[in-house]
């Protein structure tokens, strides 16, 4: 197990190196010279040269890449072309918002997805099953941003029961702490602020989780059906073990393996979907920030965000794979992935 873990971690190195290379190629090699974009076409040649020198863009490209890697390893992604603030500072100020939203969404999607999936597998071809199938179809077909806007129209515009934008009322905003408002307000015992933060989270979570919820429901259902049809489950049933027990102790446990994988993979689509959700709900995370930075050709920021998100995603999948190995002792640790 330890050997397997170490091996998996070592395998991350080429992947992360590759991601850095891809990001670097897109931003520094394929993209046009940022100097005129930042300074304006009418800027003098000298001014542009000076700017390029200041940002290390006149060095040989290989050196630039090595510098980029070296700096990235220490969490230094340079300074934003526009605000002249360290990119890392700008990102860290917004990262907790995205993390909080993504965690809430994946928890919501996993818990309800598995629940719905199990229920519809056990009660196959009943109203519950059909309802969950339809829900799953809507979930994978409806664009997140459309769903988000419809939620706003319903809950904020018509019923006036949920706030439409932002993370918390400004006067209740926690200062310091982790930046995860639910956690911060809970640990400081500020329940009014906790409630307000939770209310702000409901719609973004719903919108972001819907797609993953659908995928997880469908996956759980089909995986449960597979295991329920296995011989040993039939045997267990015929032996008179209560069907509740069968589902809980035998079928679900075995079905969990593919489900865990799907949940891990869903994190990727969640991080991508956060860009849209954050834009619709004016959620101050790195997703909406990235969209703003593209317009400005603020390459260092876009570069850093893509790299960080890819790293997070790869790490999460590593953790999922480890849990997976944990759950299923039959996995051969030497197995080559891919």
């Amino acid at each position, binding site marked *: 197990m330890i050997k397997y873990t170490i091996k998996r971690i070592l395998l991350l190195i080429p992947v992360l190196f590759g991601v850095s290379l891809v990001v670097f190629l897109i931003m520094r090699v394929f993209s046009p010279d940022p100097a005129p974009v930042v300074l304006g076409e009418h800027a003098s040649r000298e001014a542009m040269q000076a700017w390029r020198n200041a940002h290390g863009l006149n060095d040989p490209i290989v050196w630039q890449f090595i510098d980029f890697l070296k700096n990235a390893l220490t969490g230094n992604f340079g300074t934003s072309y526009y605000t002249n603030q360290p990119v890392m500072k700008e990102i860290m100020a917004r990262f907790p918002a995205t993390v909080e939203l993504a965690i809430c969404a994946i928890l919501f999607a996993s818990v309800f997805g598995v629940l719905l999936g199990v229920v519809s597998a056990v009660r196959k071809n009943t109203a519950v099953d059909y309802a969950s199938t339809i829900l799953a*179809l809507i979930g*994978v077909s409806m664009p997140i941003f459309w769903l988000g806007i419809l939620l706003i*129209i319903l809950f904020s515009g018509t019923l006036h029961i949920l706030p439409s934008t932002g993370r918390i009322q400004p006067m209740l905003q926690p200062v310091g702490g982790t930046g995860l408002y639910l956690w911060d307000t809970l640990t400081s015992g500020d329940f009014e602020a906790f409630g307000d933060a939770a209310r702000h989270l409901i719609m973004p979570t719903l919108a972001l989780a819907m797609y993953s919820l659908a*995928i997880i429901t469908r996956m759980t259902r*089909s995986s449960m059906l597979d295991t329920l049809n296995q011989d040993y489950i039939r045997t267990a049933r015929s032996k008179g073990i209560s069907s509740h027990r069968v589902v809980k102790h035998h079928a679900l446990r075995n079905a969990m393996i593919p489900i865990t994988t799907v949940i891990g993979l869903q994190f990727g689509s969640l991080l991508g*979907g956060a860009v849209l959700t954050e834009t619709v709900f004016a959620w101050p995370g790195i997703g909406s920030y990235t969209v703003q930075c593209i317009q400005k050709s603020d390459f260092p920021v876009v*570069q850093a965000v893509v790299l960080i*998100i*890819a790293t997070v995603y790869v790490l999460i*999948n590593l953790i999922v794979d480890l849990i997976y190995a944990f759950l299923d002792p039959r996995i051969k640790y030497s197995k080559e992935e891919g």
Partner: protein
Amino acid sequence: MDKTQDTAAEISLSTQEFLEKPESQWKSMWDSLKKNKAAMVSLAFIIILVLIAVITAIFPQVLPHDPYEQNMTKTFLFPDGRYWFGTDQLGRDIFSRIMVGTRVSLSVGVIAVAVSMTLGVVFGSLAGYLGGKVDSFIMRIMDIMLSIPSILLAIAFMAALGQGIDKAVIAISLVSIPEYARIVRGEILSVKENDYVQAAKVIGDKDGRIIFRHILPNVLSSIIVRATLGISSAILDASALGFLGLGVQPPAAEWGDMLGRARNYIFQAPYTLIFPGLAISLTVLAFNLLGDGLRDALDPKSRQN
């Protein structure tokens, strides 16, 4: 956006049973697909969409109004007999704009999938057939591509190359390559040792010929399922980029872009928001249902369920 559909397809796909008689596989698939009402309705819907896209491109006269012509005296007209879906902030006919938007969305979906499928099949075949170092090298690259969420990669591309739907297509196709490569590689690994492949090797067929003549036809069905589902996610991704204002240049009509603009008018003119949203959702839904239907038709085991 959804690497999982691929996992789902991989898990439930088992084409082994059909390997010996590829011709009958298609007939059996069609027979079983015909029984799936949802899939057939979706197929009909998709055919209509294709017709709309083609006809409006060749004979724009069939549209009730010029989709690009603004009329500042007729802004925000409620849907009626003349303007079926109403008019937008510049007095343009929403129905006509949605019709021509079909072409944008469908072509993005089809082109993106065609590109990623082709490249995915090539890489997957090479990896699966040649094995060894080539295999690990290619699959490592696939891992790298899989680790960047597609929307984000598309956004990075647009930051670098400038905004536009064409860049969206490049980005969306690049991120989907690994999905096809994985399917093809998996299938090839499982049929490589089959008798007829071995026989072909003995006869002395070239590697490329073996891949194309003997192996690919067997993988085709799983690829088709994946491609159908792939079109739906490509359309969804492209509309998302349009919504963010990174897609088409005005006055072009693209569903996501229309929806993004309509955000400002949700009270005065909710129809500016409803119809483009419906267009995206129904199209994506149709491709999903058809993809599911194809998968069930190909996989007798899942049909039992």
